[in-house]
């Protein structure tokens, strides 16, 4: 069941990227979809154990720790996601300053007709 809930988050994100014309909201939707992927990994990792993957001497013995690999991978994925968001916002900002709108359709019409 949880799988399908996470999948729903991903679908919502993708739908938002496709359907919402506002560029900022598109970027938000991308972040939502990205989060869904992160949750996929971390949830899968959490299935295999019970405690945090920190093997300090005072950790409870005998309880398996969760899979640390997805967590480490997702740290990287989070940073990459943040970087993409930042760059997208910078690009959108420049376009907004030039055209005064965030509507993808308006901007596209204006830009591609420039070189007709």
């Amino acid at each position, binding site marked *: 069941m949880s*799988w*399908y809930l996470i*999948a*729903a988050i*991903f*679908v919502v994100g*993708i*739908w938002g990227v*496709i*359907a919402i014309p506002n560029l900022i909201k598109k970027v938000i939707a991308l972040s939502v979809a990205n989060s869904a992927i992160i949750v996929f990994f971390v949830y899968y990792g959490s*299935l*295999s154990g019970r405690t945090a*993957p*920190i*093997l*300090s001497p005072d950790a409870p013995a005998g309880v*398996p*720790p969760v*899979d*640390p*690999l997805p*967590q*480490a*991978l997702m*740290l*990287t994925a989070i*940073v*990459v996601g*943040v*970087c*993409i968001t*930042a*760059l997208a*916002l*910078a*690009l959108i*900002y*420049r376009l907004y300053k030039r055209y005064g709108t965030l509507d993808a359709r308006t901007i596209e019409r204006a830009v591609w007709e*420039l*070189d007709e």
Partner: protein
Amino acid sequence: MKRAVEIAAAAVVAVFLILALAGDHPTESPIREYIVAHGVDDTGAVNLVASIYLGYRAFDTLGETIVLLIAVSGVMFLVKRSKPPADRDGDL
């Protein structure tokens, strides 16, 4: 009509995900067992996430910091300069 196309697209993605996620999957992973057994000895970090992040997969981390570096310099480059570069091509 436009809405219908969008919903159809979302439905394609949803079906894809549901079919892909279905089925039973093994939870044992040779890597996890190795890391839990040897992680602390190999890298000295008690926090296994840190031992993967900076030990076994430090190359990924280096790549990630490079991505961050590109993003920082890209944002600085795009946002700071308000006037166009001095030497412009005549082209658009």
